[in-house]
């Protein structure tokens, strides 16, 4: 039972345009969400996060939107750069208020930004 879903295995965009990566979740008890970026042969690196009490969080070129009623979040990258080409993982946390928690990851979306 996959609780965090990234339904697009891959996405290709032109440099300078917007990249939109989508993520859906099924468990309404998830209350914190994160996006990670992963280059080949490297570990994932944290990109941006959002609490369920917010609907938007922005950090430079990266913005995450959360729609709780639809159980959907998206990552927007504007403008997209070739160096953004990587696999992007969405992750969710249940009851994140305590110090003990675990992340549930989606399967990832491979973003390719073409020059």
């Amino acid at each position: 039972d996959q609780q965090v879903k990234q339904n697009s295995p891959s996405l290709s965009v032109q440099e300078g345009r917007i990249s939109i990566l989508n993520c859906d979740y099924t468990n309404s008890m998830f209350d914190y969400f994160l996006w990670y970026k992963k280059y080949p042969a490297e570990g994932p690196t944290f990109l941006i996060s959002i609490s369920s009490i917010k609907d938007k969080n922005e950090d430079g070129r990266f913005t995450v939107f959360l729609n709780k009623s639809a159980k959907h979040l998206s990552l927007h990258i504007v403008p997209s750069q070739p160096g953004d080409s990587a696999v992007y993982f969405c992750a969710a946390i249940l009851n994140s208020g305590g110090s003990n928690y675990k992340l549930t990851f989606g399967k990832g979306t491979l973003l390719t930004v073409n020059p």
Partner: protein
Amino acid sequence: DVKVTQSSRYLVKRTGEKVFLECVQDMDHENMFWYRQDPGLGLRLIYFSYDVKMKEKGDIPEGYSVSREKKERFSLILESASTNQTSMYLCASSLGDRVLYFGPGTRLTVT
């Protein structure tokens, strides 16, 4: 900067061998995790630990065990390696701020 190191980047082992994957973090993090990454399956949690000598099963613990004798070190053990354990293994740590810091990964091939 948080640093999570893993003992090997690439490892080749034979079926039936006992395999140890070591992970060390240098930031006094309480929480440590082992994930494996497979194409089309994403990151799946094998085991995690919230404190020394503590361990909790993740989503796919079968065929694995772990050891956490010191706070900075979390070891993943494959008791008898099998070909379906060929994968990228990723260790991570966190302080409790909900962000995981990952190591570079170990690409394990079991032949």
